């Protein structure tokens, strides 16, 4: 806080500053700039409208939400990868083999019914490699 005395030469008038803003002692052009804050700072200062506790609570909720969603995204990616790769290795080959077996049975069934008639088609079937 700077107070200027009237001893200062007449080119500048003395300015008594009662706000918290700091004014350089020799810069006299500032009295033309009534607004010392940028627009963004003014908007941010609107937060002082709310009491302290509400401000803090909202801040905590906000950061918790952000962190939780980041964590959920990371864990979700990880879980999706783990589950997909494990199912590929544990369950997928069994399904493929069952499908191949069914197709092989169907082919041999058709061959028998073409070759020997529909009676023989229902008798025991032969397996084949793969």
């Amino acid at each position, binding site marked *: 806080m700077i107070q200027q005395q009237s001893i200062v030469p007449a080119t500048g008038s003395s300015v008594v500053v009662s706000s918290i803003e700091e004014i350089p002692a020799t810069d006299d052009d500032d009295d033309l700039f009534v607004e010392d804050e940028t627009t963004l700072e003014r908007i941010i200062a609107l937060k002082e409208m709310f009491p302290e506790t509400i401000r803090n609570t909202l801040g905590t909720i906000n950061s918790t939400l952000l962190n939780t969603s980041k964590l959920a995204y990371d864990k979700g990616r990880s879980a999706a990868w783990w589950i997909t*790769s494990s199912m590929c*290795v544990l369950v997928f*080959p*069994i399904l493929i*083999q069952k499908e191949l*077996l069914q197709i092989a049975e169907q082919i041999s069934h058709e061959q028998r019914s073409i070759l020997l008639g529909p009676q023989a088609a229902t008798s025991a079937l032969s*397996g084949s490699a793969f």
Partner: protein
Amino acid sequence: MANVSGNAPSNETNKSSKIDEQQSAQPAFPNTRWMNVTTDLSRNPGIFEDVFKKIKDLLPPSFEGAKLSVTKMLSSHFQVSHSMTLSSGSNSGYKFGANYLGTQLYSQSEVFPVILGDVDPNGNANAQIIHQWSDKLRTRILAQVQSFKMAGYQLSMDYRTQFTTTTVTLANVDLFSSSGIAVLQHLTRVTKNLDIGAELLYQSNPMIPGGHIGITSFVSRYRGLDWFTALKLSPAGVFNVGYFHQKSNSPLQLGVEFEASLAAKETSATFSYQYDLTKANTTFRGMLDTNGLVSAVIEKRLAPLPFTFMLSSSLNHAKSAYRFGIGLLIG
């Protein structure tokens, strides 16, 4: 706790299943004679080590790299195998194994004596002799050499009666440095469904504070119609629970095992399954672990030829390390 009778040669389980397959092909082993079996061992609970065996057999034998193995029967008693493993691990290389089955037939699937061995040019060798002296008494001698030095040797003896099995094992006994391990195990069938057993492990070694240490543990197994539960407790702080389920005539076998160790303050659970598609000559085994390990093995018999094709995969999600293997067993 030291696992004394582990480290059996890896091809042992392959060979005993080959014995069973051979069994189904012919009515009995040729050139064998039946031995006199006087006791009824149908209600015998098996040996202490085998209480969790059915669950552990569901674990997939995963491997890395390529594996080729050729097995040839030189006579009805003697079998020889050559196997090559190409992997970036330590067990890469050539291994020669030999198997001898004796002339004493005790049951449809058990012939004695059995002599197993394998050797490789890096100075590792395993050898095992299993012999049954009478229908109640069986002994097993095991020796292992690693990098040209003797790594372990063990002698164990089982005595079976109608409802109980007692096992005495001596391992790595060295009288000059007074070190060694002795294990006494006993398993009894208490009721039709419940087996209870106890084990005392005594180890003497000048490096242990006090010179020697004794550890006890207790095991129990409760059987239901399609399932069994097994429990292993040790006052030293190791706790194991297992559950096995196979609905009768179902191709799916499930097993869960939970292990807790108070000394190391860690626990782990393993879920494993085995699915047999006999029409397609395929067996699928898989395992899922709380340590983030997933592994699966597919074994397929390529029917008219005596080939077995194996695919193995091992995913370690915690370390993001994925390993795959491919194998072909001939004969």
